[in-house]
């Protein structure tokens, strides 16, 4: 399953809205089958902040672990945010090399 993060907005900066997005995504997440991966596509997102991502990507990672896969992004805020989330959560996200 592929999730276009831009469906939640293009400026993803607040903790409050990150948390709302996570809750809103739960019904869709239930459609993910047993060992299916969830690919996060950042294209179309202008700015991603650690607060938003910590409320969305961190709990998703806790929920589905290695099945969470991040697609590559050349957006500097996406790259910086993923780096700090890995440090904060002491985890390594799985990346897919090609879209």
């Amino acid at each position, binding site marked *: 399953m592929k999730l276009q993060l831009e469906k939640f907005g*293009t*400026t993803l*900066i*607040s*903790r*409050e*809205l990150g948390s709302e997005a996570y809750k809103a995504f739960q019904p869709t997440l239930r459609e993910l089958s047993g060992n299916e991966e969830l690919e996060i596509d950042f294209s179309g997102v*202008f*700015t*991603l*902040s*650690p*607060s938003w991502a*910590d*409320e969305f990507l*961190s709990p998703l990672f806790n929920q589905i672990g290695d099945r969470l896969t991040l697609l590559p992004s*050349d*957006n*500097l*805020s*996406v790259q*910086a*945010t993923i780096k*700090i*989330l890995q*440090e*904060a959560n002491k985890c390594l996200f799985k990346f897919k090399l090609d879209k």
Partner: protein
Amino acid sequence: MEEKLLTIAQAAEILGVSLDTLRRWDKSGKLVAIRKEGGAHRYYWEKDLEIFSSDLFKFASEWIQNNIEFPSAFYCQNSDTFRARLSKMEHLLMQKPGFEKLYSLVVLIAGEIGDNSFAHNIGKWPDTLGIFFGYDLGKRIIVLADRGLGILETLRQVRPDLPNHIEAVNVAFTEFISGRAPEKRGNGLKLVREVVIAQPIDLFYISGDAEVRMKGTDKTFRVTRGQRIVRGCLAKIDF
């Protein structure tokens, strides 16, 4: 870079005001002078004058220190207004030559600092709700401020042993800790620090009497005691 100390006459010339005005501002606290040990003469740091002379900073500074009114165009009463204005700034910035990629990091920094003000003061604003958010993309400057609890009081909710503003601001920028425990740990200001160090972006940040100045090509993170004490938080981003 060597910091330059100016005489009151030099400061008056730079700011375009009289000596008497500077003396009055010193007495009233609007622009506090420095006195060398035991001396009566007033001196000013050149960098303080630069900061003082940018209007956005003055508006924000006077608001959080003395509750002086500022143009309502800079006021965001709630986070929805802030996000809408931030998106508008983002749109303008991404079209600016040289910022085609860097814009997202500038928006990230402003977004984190502004969002922090709302997240940490919700239901607890001591008086005026909301934040000051002003930007001038021509001058490449963004100013954010709030009259909230400030970093020390916020973090003392989870770290009651924090002794002063300096230590609190240091913790906020360097440790994974949230003032809203048992909620998620905060990581926003840590990333702000890392991005400012790595990118051509300068940051001046105050809470209480603690100041962070990260400027120039050889930036280091250091919290010092400043001349002023501010309510809440005040940030100036140059890029």
